[in-house]
């Protein structure tokens, strides 16, 4: 699974660093280093909402304060589906 996190100015100010760090901690916690590939990307042209991320080719908007629950809800479930 590929996760791209926007690190452009707008998302950076909205807290993309927090999202990255939260995801990195979660990946470590769930031992998903081999399953998930994270990368940075500049502006995804959806600056109005939260921090922009792409999971494979699907766009999401994440509130940094809810990054943990987002990871559990959107990412863990997807990984499970892939594994099943």
């Amino acid at each position: 699974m590929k996760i791209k996190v926007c690190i452009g100015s707008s998302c950076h100010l909205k807290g993309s660093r927090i999202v990255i760090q939260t995801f990195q901690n979660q990946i470590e916690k769930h031992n998903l280093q081999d399953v998930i590939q994270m990368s940075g990307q500049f502006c995804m042209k959806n600056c109005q909402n939260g921090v922009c991320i792409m999971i494979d080719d699907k766009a999401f908007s994440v509130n940094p304060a809810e990054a943990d629950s987002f990871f559990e809800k959107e990412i863990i479930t997807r990984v499970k589906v892939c594994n099943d």
Partner: protein
Amino acid sequence: MRKFDTQVQYLKYKVLREVARQHWDGRLLHELWNIPKTIISGNVPTTRCCVYKERAIVSERVKLAMGGDRENPNVIEVIKLACDECPVSGYEVTASCRGCLAHRCEDVCPKGAISFDSNRKAYIDKTKCIECGLCAKACQFNAISNNKRPCQSACKVKAITMDDEKAAEIDESKCIACGACVYQCPFGAIMDKSFIIDAIDILKASKGNTKYNTYAVVAPSISSQFSYAKLGQVVTAIKKLGFHEVVEAALGADMVAYKESEELIEKGFLTSSCCPAFVMHIEKQYPNLIDNISHNLSPMAEISRYIKSVDENAKVIFIGPCTAKKMEFQKESVSPYVDCVLTFEELQALFDSRAFDITAFEEDVLDNASFYGRIFARSGGLADAVAQAIKEHGSDFELNAIACDGIEECNKALIRANRKLLPNNFIEGMACVGGCIGGAGCLAHGAKDRTQVDKYGKEAMEKTIKDAIVAVSLK
């Protein structure tokens, strides 16, 4: 209204703007011969003997605005026609000499070059004079003046000589492309080549960022420029030119500071590698010290490399205060990452070629780097950032940095380092006085620039280098 420091800059800007305007419309080749007349209209000369010479010089400027002599690897070129062949006689006694009794000039002259004629007026024997200037300082009537060419005075690496016709000539074995002569020549007879056409081509061929994305990497010294508008409006204007995204070179500076501190801890002695003119000076004058130059890329190249690692088809245009960057981006180690370099002067010309009213634009945001990355723009900032990075590494390495402000100071430190007499373990070398904010490609140079940079630094959201580089830890 925007301000230029001099009329020379203003004329250069007008040419760049006109060349850019025609090229956006695809009419440059068609309009080429009309540009001199557009710029020098009417029949009354204002700067030279006649409008025909003025137009001939403008033609030369058009050529440089379009890239100049492609056979000449240097990006700094002399417009021989525009060179006024200023006097080169050095120190001379003027009519203000009052023939006093004190003869302080004679007393201070270390070479005994001063004598007095039958009217008791001083005379300097040029065969003995070493142009030290002590006599001029000693004269209480300021009767001794220095007839030195401003380009030669500006060039602290002594790369300006004279050709057979007494026009300025650049000694390529010494020139570091810092642009000091470009900024100082009162006749505008030395100019940096422009890649403005190349930049427009890159933007046009991206077809609105559908073929590939074009990124603008902007130097932190932008905070001291475009003072007539807000920085956020300038960011909007850059995007309206057709850029996909604007990224701070200062984030590259954070990356460099972090890596450079590691390299310093490992090696024990380093010189910085951020300033291309400083690096070129070491390469040309101090080959023994080449191994001590930090092996890191410059902030410009480092962030551009990152951009291309996450967006492989990206094109990157660096926008900064620097003429020497126009040399650096052509180096084999940098050319894969940076596609073009523009100065702030050229960016202004690009804005106006599109007739932007920037002050009416909405403000966009620009925030990628930390305080430390941003203060690279001024002298001492790089050394501060390396000190911070050492701290963030948790190392007990004792940094003893020397921040050299301008190539003259760099030279002093390098001479001592070459003889192993330098007590410091890190040389921050900035060829321009003040650091990048003193660069030749700046629109304006002022006393408040340094404060502006620090203020901009403090506005950064990230307060540490480590936090700023989290974003680029992802590949």
